[in-house]
């Protein structure tokens, strides 16, 4: 009789498909996973501790480095939290700039996901196509903020820089171009039989699981939960735009894939409307004190990042530094369901499931 043995396999922290320094200790029987244990913390930088000794404006660059694929939403969440506490009314033009920046960033973030996910699945080219479009967005945001990745663009009360001349027009041109490219994406990948077979029915969970495990973003919407903070708890000026909340019923990697691609289209819709409504002149900063001091008390706000619900909790004692700052990092919460999903799957599915959750390790580890 053949004697078989379970094998302990370390996937990561140095592995091409863990999207960073994520380690997964899996017990495998052949190629079938019997147990999976995620190990995180390799990228923990103690942002929250550091923030306790920093003024609010100084914290913003740190948030860039959490979810470095979508820095704009991170910028926004802390500014939004402080603004909520201080009751600051942000000027219209600043709000539009913020929304444009965030939605462009969301598109870029989904593109990165799309590209890397297909890389995980084994197709190399989509990655490069996605990065072509992402590069255009990054250039746009670069023009706006002066940085390509860690934008550090938003401030409490507004934004740091006004849009350079001709920027809005460039954004307006980008939207139809991106729509055209999206069609190409669907032709190249969405209809591909191999791809469909790789993701359909993989990593399936129910609506109840999604709620139970505190999933958010596309990870929750793929199970039929129609929930988007932009729509359901409108912040900023999202109530002025007409867009749909995308949700799918499947609950598998395929549904997540569809959700994200459709969300790109919704974001483009928002960008288009924001460009139309964009106020031609106006302030980009509210009148805020030079030294920002949140009033004594606490606040928790949450907004919709590309990865899900990003939240910011601030406890303030009235000083210029927060007493306690805490980020609700969507990747951290979303990753929790992974061990449950992996049992009984094979190594190839491991990659497909992990990729579909869309984690950024900077965010998981804080």
């Amino acid at each position: 009789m053949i004697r078989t043995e379970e094998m302990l396999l370390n996937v990561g922290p140095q592995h091409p498909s863990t999207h960073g320094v994520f380690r997964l200790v899996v017990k495998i029987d052949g190629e079938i996973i019997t147990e999976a244990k995620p190990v995180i913390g390799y990228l923990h930088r103690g942002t929250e501790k550091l923030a306790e000794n920093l003024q609010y404006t100084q914290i913003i660059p740190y948030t860039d480095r959490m979810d470095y694929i979508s820095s704009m939403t991170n910028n926004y969440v802390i500014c939004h939290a402080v603004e909520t506490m201080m009751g600051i009314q942000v000027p219209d033009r600043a709000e539009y700039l913020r929304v444009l920046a965030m939605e462009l960033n969301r598109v870029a973030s989904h593109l990165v996901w799309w590209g890397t996910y297909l890389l995980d699945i084994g197709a190399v080219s989509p990655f490069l196509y996605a990065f072509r479009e992402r590069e255009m967005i990054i250039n746009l945001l670069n023009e706006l903020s002066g940085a390509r990745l860690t934008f550090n663009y938003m401030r409490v009360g507004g934004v740091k820089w006004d849009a350079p001349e001709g920027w809005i027009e460039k954004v307006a041109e980008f939207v139809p171009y991106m729509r055209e490219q999206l069609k190409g994406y669907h032709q190249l990948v969405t209809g591909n039989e191999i791809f469909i077979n790789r993701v359909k029915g993989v990593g399936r969970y129910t609506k109840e699981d999604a709620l139970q495990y505190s999933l958010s973003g596309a990870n929750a919407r793929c199970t039929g939960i129609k929930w988007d903070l932009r729509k359901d708890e409108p912040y900023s000026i999202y109530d002025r735009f007409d867009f749909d909340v995308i949700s799918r019923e499947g609950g598998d990697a395929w549904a997540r894939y569809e959700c994200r691609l459709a969300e790109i289209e919704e974001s483009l819709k928002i960008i288009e409307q924001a460009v139309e409504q964009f106020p031609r002149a106006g302030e980009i900063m509210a009148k805020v004190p030079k030294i920002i001091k949140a009033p004594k008390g606490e606040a928790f706000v949450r907004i919709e990042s590309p990865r899900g619900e990003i939240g910011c909790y601030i406890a303030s004692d009235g000083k210029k530094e927060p007493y306690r700052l805490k980020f609700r990092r969507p990747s951290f919460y979303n990753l929790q369901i992974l061990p449950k999903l992996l049992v009984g799957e094979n190594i190839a599915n491991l990659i497909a499931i992990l990729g579909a959750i869309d984690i950024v390790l900077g965010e998981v580890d804080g």
Partner: protein
Amino acid sequence: MIQDLLYSSPSLANFGIFFLLATVFLFVILGFVTYAILAERKVMGFMQLRHGPNQVGGRWGLLQTVADVLKLLLKEDTIPKLADRPLFILAPAIAFAPAFMVVATIPFTDSLQFADIGVGLLYYIAVSGLTTIGIVTGSWASNNKYSLLGGMRAAAQMISYEIPLVMSVLGIILLSGSLNLNEIVEAQKDGWFIILQPIAFIVFLIASVAELNRAPFDLPEAESELVAGFHVEYSGFRWAFFMLAEYVYFFAMASLITVLFLGGWLPLPFLGFIPGAVWFALKFSVVVFLLIWFRVTFPRVRADQLMEFGWKVLLPVALANIFLTALLKELLNAF
């Protein structure tokens, strides 16, 4: 000429001539591999909005692969401490040798062929299967879990796809009545087998990509899953041997497809004034391009789907093709 030598009595001079020829042939193949790699990188580059190599050796990067090989030769030869040393060293050679051996039977033109063996096709398929042993040996000897997984995948894949590969060719053998590659080409004078045997062609193409371990069937070295698969622990020249084996098979398989389905060196009608070698090169290039195109376009299939596809789809289709061919042949003969 070679035929005569083969039939002459063995002597030291004979051995010398063959050794010399083999060496020359090896260099020709190395030259091909060099430029096949370059071509692949360039084609992939253009398909992926990149430039590909364009620094070493002029605008087209003509010396890039040469530089890469030199670098590989200079690299430190690392062998893991807990590896099975003799097997670890032996494995690349086991993998490479058959790759070189199979090329001997490919007829490039009616006169340019190394060995015209009566059962050339059978020889090719039999010998090419040996490479799997090299891969499994290497993966086992590395003492690495990823490479072990890769090796197991390779073994399973090779065995599964060898069968449809052989089965799909049976139709051709039925039509041509020979296993000799020269005769198979001659049999295509009236029509290439890609037209007469379209089903066989598709099955053979898919199975050959799987045999080559190329995307979308590159599971044994699936980068995103197994890091580098069976050659995780190999570096430097030993790794280059695996690479070499892979590309020589690439060469051999493209040639075989040309010979079996595209009529080898046979010209298109009215274009007979172009020499056969050019025709062969053209057809061969088309096949190579097609294979590169596959690699750029497709995502990777999953191991279990691969098995299912091999056994549940390709094999029955190939068997049906044999049946159909035999039936048609008998019917045509009857009337």
